[in-house]
């Protein structure tokens, strides 16, 4: 070693290398020592490469339709004629003792169902006249009518639903699934998020975050108007060839750096650049609903050029068709407190139903005729349910009819992906306040979704901070009763 070279190695250089070296050592020991075959497994050079599930899964993709704000089960699926009898009466103290509500104070009045119900299909599912379209496909659906959660505020409840924990920091379901299975299409992200209703979910982007999983697994939020992904187009004056040349140059430098230090994150970075380049072509193409035929637009009830739930639903179908693993939709506006008319159970809720009913129904039928429903699991639901009592905010009557947040029983439905058709599981008491049998919770739903994709939720783990983590933490049971 000549002295010239030694002079170049400064103290700063030493600290940098030592830090990296120690880090790599620590990383090596973390990987090497994890016990029992639960090692984190992904190919850093191609982190979205498809991977085999633990056992053959029935579903290949997920479309999760989250009605943010929490729709009222009592006006949609959970028919309670007995509640009508009690309409306007004081809520009995037994239902209030020891309970906490987000807004209800004092003694609220009971509120009867604000919709007409009928049984539909061979399965005889109770669906209200708020959902005239969905009623026609009742026989494709399994309703879970006694779902419970333990968070009564939007943000924590949404986080719990999608990440398995009410606090920030855990990976979302879509991130877990993309980590576990990769993406079938090399040119598209594995996990796409679409929002509508004029607002992002309360919990923010953490509901589709990657938590402690490598960041490549986080959801990619696409927009249904303007550029589908921000900054996806080359800036003015830059041609595609220029872009290609610059990416190649950057990757070459990164490649050299990788040879020096051997950090797999660099390979991941190179792969990301290459994928971004391919996505520039593929994403605008798949995200463009204008080249869909007219009858499809009529079927979904889309509004091209505007932000709309129907557009997002059509996009979801297109994405799944192209091999995207997890499509997450959030539609804001279901928080029917009755504080204003568009949050009224008999006005705003009905309008939300009208905005979404046709598209959701079209989605199920369209997936079906394309042979995709068998391998795509569709989930519809909110983050909790709504109370059988009318909301009296801070003890005062609200200007419109509304219901408060309710954690003890609400309805979620699933269709396709190896779930029973025309089935209902779980039951609430005669006023829809508590679940009385077939109780399920958020973790059970997560466990069931993973099961349909070919994962045992108890064995699907990621080593982090010295212990294996799971989506369902220490909870959850697969809801075997609803599996076909």
């Amino acid at each position, binding site marked *: 070693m000549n002295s010239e070279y030694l002079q170049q190695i400064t103290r700063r250089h030493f600290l940098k290398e030592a830090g990296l070296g120690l880090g790599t050592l620590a990383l090596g020991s973390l990987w090497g020592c994890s016990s029992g075959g639960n090692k984190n497994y992904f190919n850093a050079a191609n982190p979205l490469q498809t991977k085999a599930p633990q*056992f*053959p899964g029935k579903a290949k993709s997920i479309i999760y339709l989250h009605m943010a704000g929490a729709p009222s089960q009592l006006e949609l699926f959970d028919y309670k004629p007995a509640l009508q009898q009690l309409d306007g009466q004081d809520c009995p103290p037994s239902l209030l003792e020891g309970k906490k509500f987000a807004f209800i104070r004092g003694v609220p009045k009971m509120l009867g169902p604000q919709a007409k119900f009928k049984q539909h299909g061979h399965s005889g599912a109770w669906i209200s006249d708020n959902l005239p379209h969905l009623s026609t496909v009742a026989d494709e659906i399994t309703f879970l009518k006694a779902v419970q959660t333990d968070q009564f505020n939007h943000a924590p409840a949404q986080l719990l639903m999608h990440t398995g924990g009410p606090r920030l920091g855990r990976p979302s379901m879509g991130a877990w699934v993309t980590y576990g299975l990769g993406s079938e299409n090399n*040119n598209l992200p594995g996990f796409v998020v679409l929002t509508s209703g004029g607002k992002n979910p309360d919990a923010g982007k953490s509901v589709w975050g990657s938590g402690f999983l490598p960041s490549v697994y986080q959801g990619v939020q696409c927009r249904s108007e303007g550029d589908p992904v921000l900054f996806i187009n080359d800036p003015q004056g830059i041609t595609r060839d220029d872009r290609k040349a610059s990416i190649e140059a950057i990757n070459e430098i990164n490649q050299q750096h990788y040879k020096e230090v051997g950090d797999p994150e660099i390979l991941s970075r190179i792969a990301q650049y290459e994928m971004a380049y391919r996505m520039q072509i593929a994403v605008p193409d798949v995200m463009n609903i204008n080249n869909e035929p007219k*009858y499809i637009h009529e079927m979904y009830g889309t509004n091209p050029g505007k932000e709309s739930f129907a557009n997002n639903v059509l996009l979801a179908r297109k994405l799944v068709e192209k091999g995207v693993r997890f499509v997450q939709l959030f539609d804001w506006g279901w928080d029917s407190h009755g504080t204003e008319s568009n949050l009224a159970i008999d006005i705003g809720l009905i309008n939300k139903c*009208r905005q979404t009913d046709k598209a959701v129904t079209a989605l199920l039928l369209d997936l079906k*005729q*394309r042979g995709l429903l068998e391998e795509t699991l569709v989930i519809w639901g909110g983050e909790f349910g709504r109370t059988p009592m009318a909301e009296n905010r801070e003890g005062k009557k609200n200007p419109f009819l509304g219901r408060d947040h309710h954690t003890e029983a609400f309805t979620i439905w699933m269709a396709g992906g190896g779930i029973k058709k025309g089935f209902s599981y779980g039951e609430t008491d005669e006023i829809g306040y508590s679940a009385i049998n077939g109780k399920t919770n958020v973790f059970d739903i997560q466990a069931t979704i993973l099961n349909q994709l070919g994962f045992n939720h108890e064995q699907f783990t990621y080593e982090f901070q010295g212990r294996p983590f799971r989506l369902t933490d220490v909870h959850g049971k697969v809801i075997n009763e609803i599996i076909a």
Partner: protein
Amino acid sequence: MTHLLEFFGRLHPMLVHLPIGILLLAIVLIFFSEFKKKKISRSVLNFTLGAGAWSAMASALTGFQLSRTGDYDEVIVWRHQWLGISVAIASLVLWLLFQNRLIKRRLLKLSSVLILALLVGTGHLGASLTHGSDYLTEPLLEIGKAETPPIDFATLDLNKTQFYPDVIKPILEKRCVSCHGEGKQKGKLRLDQPEYILKGGKSGKVIEPEKQDEGELLYRIHLSLKDKDHMPPKEKPQLTVQELALLRLWITTGSDFSKMISGIVSKHQLDSALGSHDNQAVYVPVSEPPSLDWNLVNALITKGVSITAVAQGSNYLSVSFISVPKEASKLIDELPPLRQNIIWLTLSDCNVNDDISPVLKQFTKLTRLSLDNTNFSDKGLTEISSLSELVSLNLKGTKVTFEGVKNLVTLTKLQDLYLYQTKLEAADRQTLQSILKNTKIDFGDYAVPTLPTDTTEVKPPKR
């Protein structure tokens, strides 16, 4: 003091071997000197008898202490105790007589035979306490009996198999009963009979009928092996993953002692508890395919073909050309070496036509095939109607007609057929369905009519 006594009690299993060995030696010496006509030094015999007698006393005392812990079957303990005490007394008396020359040679031999008998009896009962009463005879009882094979849950008739007697009892007998049975009752717990299982042990019930997830039994078998409360104790043979899963399933479903399995859990619940999955439902053949050329697989992945095993560790593959639809017609020619392995094939939206059917029909294991939105037509369809394993076939958006599709009658396993946007006449649908009786055909063309309410809003009442 009690702890010290308990400690002495636990010396018993070690000390018992001394009188057995030493007294046996003494007996051998007595007879040896007789037959071989060789004089054994009197002092040697005296010492051996003495040592035997004292060790027998020590064993009896420690044994008495151990029996007071109460973990053992009372009847056997009682017999073992008195036989043990008689061994100690008899050997002590014999030694004293011998030492003081008060015993004749013949009587000496006779009494040594008596002690031998007592020794064997005591030893056997002691062993019964430790290892279970049928420990010795168990292998003999198995003679002539066909070995019971492990239960094959894949072929098991759930309507004819009782959960407890046929599945759970054998597990408990194999793993638990040697310490929690008739002979030994550690922690005052027996797991050999339903009534004892329900009764529980020293720390209360082991199965909580009300809180099925919380019973002591379930708790202890799930503890970490490092935990001192873990059962079975870490030095003993452990429950297998399957046995653990079965026990858990049985307990959490209400620990019923008489019902058939089908009366307690569904096939699906059983399968998912055992981690075995109903592969038929997702069209995976039961038999494992030949190993495959991973180099070829990786080469194809580099070219953009998506290839994945259908499950970790399986050699069956799922292949998709979704990222490279334009190159599919060329790349598919590289697949035939994997023809025994590929069971799911997706060619959706690819620029392929009937020309690929000679390649396609080599994939005789295919159960799922998606040819939607390709230029496939009747000609190709007729060629691939030999793919007899097909369960799901997607022909949406292809050029197939009634003439071609009706040839699929040879596909007896075909369950799902998608014919949306094909050249099939609406008038032929019924005829086709009557030909393909066992197939669910989806012709699509669903519509969701626009209702007046879809485009109007409910307005709040004017005040």
